């Protein structure tokens, strides 16, 4: 995949889809020629993002629905994760205090640490779209 191509995957289910999303994103990142370290970072970011979608956006529903797309324009790998569940409010997010011990709340923090750009689109009729970008 190179120079302006796009791939798409739709997943429905419970926590088992997190690994499927991660493996797909890993394969896409590998095809795009990213380094081993960058591939691992993308796997982590996608895992954390899908976990948040399954646990929070679809907290009251038996099945999550996530559409993942990846685009490679030669300079950037752009992943989009679109869900149709409860909307996420980025303004309400508070990063964890790293001087304290937490049993949760590191997910979005890690996404922001390992990806070069992180954006949320929250004005769809339903759900949220998360955009993750990595420089090649």
């Amino acid at each position: 995949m190179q120079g302006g191509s796009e791939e798409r995957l739709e997943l429905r289910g419970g926590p088992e889809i997190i690994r499927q999303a991660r493996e797909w994103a890993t394969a896409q990142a590998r095809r795009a020629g990213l380094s081993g370290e960058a591939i691992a970072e993308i796997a982590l970011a996608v895992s954390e993002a899908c976990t948040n979608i399954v646990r929070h956006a679809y907290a009251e529903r038996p099945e999550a629905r996530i559409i993942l797309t990846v685009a490679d324009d030669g300079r950037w790998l752009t992943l989009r994760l679109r869900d149709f569940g409860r909307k996420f409010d980025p303004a309400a997010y508070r990063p964890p205090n790293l001087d304290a011990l937490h049993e949760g709340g590191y997910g979005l923090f890690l996404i922001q640490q390992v990806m070069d750009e992180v954006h949320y689109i929250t004005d769809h009729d339903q759900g949220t779209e998360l955009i993750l970008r990595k420089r090649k």
Partner: protein
Amino acid sequence: MKIEAQKVDNVTVVVVEGEIDTLTVPQLHETFDRLVAAGEQNYVIDLAGVPFMDSSGLAALVKLFKRIRIGHGDVRLCRVRPEIRKILELTRLDRVFEIYEDRTLAVASYREQG
């Protein structure tokens, strides 16, 4: 995911194999719950066989650590792969958990402290 726990001296070595995420982490919680209930205080978690761990794994380690510290026990890690070491560093949990390159050294570290 496969988890095995073995006692070496006064240290419980927990060897984990497989990816740790939201789907698989309940097994880790169950293992830790069982060991804590049995009174085990000193842990070495061997992560050589863990090619992926996300924040659900961090949460399980932190939960165990908090429970054990009450009784003056400790949780130490060994054979952590670079990708996982990175998330420990990003979250500053590498300042909480002692990390060893080698399982024998990790177990021995408890002996040295007496």
